[in-house]
């Protein structure tokens, strides 16, 4: 059974500094997703990582995938208040019908 773990669970950030969220998964997966969720809102897709060594960047967010280590990271550069949200990673195995297994989420709070 695929299990996905994120850490930390909560991250208090200072504006302007850099931080990393880690996502470990237990078995070989075909794809790794990162989603953002604002309080009371739905999940917004950020990145899809398809292969080992994949790196995707959008603004201050950069996601990478190491399939050998079964690890994905979400790096935040020069944090700003607008990035306050909960971030989820999710792994997918195509042979399991494209089912997403989510991590528990990392709640990010960026303070001025």
């Amino acid at each position, binding site marked *: 059974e695929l299990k996905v773990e994120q850490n930390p669970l909560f991250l208090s950030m200072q504006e302007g500094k850099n931080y990393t969220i880690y996502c470990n998964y237990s078995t070989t997966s075909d794809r790794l997703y990162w989603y953002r969720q604002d309080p009371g809102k739905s999940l917004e897709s950020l990145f899809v990582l398809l292969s080992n060594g994949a790196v995707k960047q959008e603004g201050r967010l950069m996601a990478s995938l190491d399939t050998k280590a079964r690890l994905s990271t979400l790096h935040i550069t020069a944090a700003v208040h607008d990035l306050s949200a909960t971030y989820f990673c999710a792994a997918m195995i195509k042979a399991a019908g494209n*089912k997403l297994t989510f991590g528990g989420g990392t709640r990010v709070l960026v303070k001025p």
Partner: protein
Amino acid sequence: EAGVAQSPRYKIIEKRQSVAFWCNPISGHATLYWYQQILGQGPKLLIQFQNNGVVDDSQLPKDRFSAERLKGVDSTLKIQPAKLEDSAVYLCASSLQRASRGIQYFGAGTRLSVL
């Protein structure tokens, strides 16, 4: 392009009552998912439809939960009777059948409180 529509947004019921949620996926999306998100946790898949058929319902508590997708478009999720532990946000998502990246698009969810 319209997103995934869900209703109602909020529902408060007493335990042992029944409740139903409705979802309209993005037009053309063959795959539809229902997730349960308990406060402070990641979403957990309850059931996945491919057009009209069920692909995966292994985590659906079938003694009380049921779901259907008529005509391969809209879907309803029902709980009967509800328990206190069913309090959660119920998210509907949809995706293209053969999308290479397999992105799932989520609705705003229905927040259920069981008293």
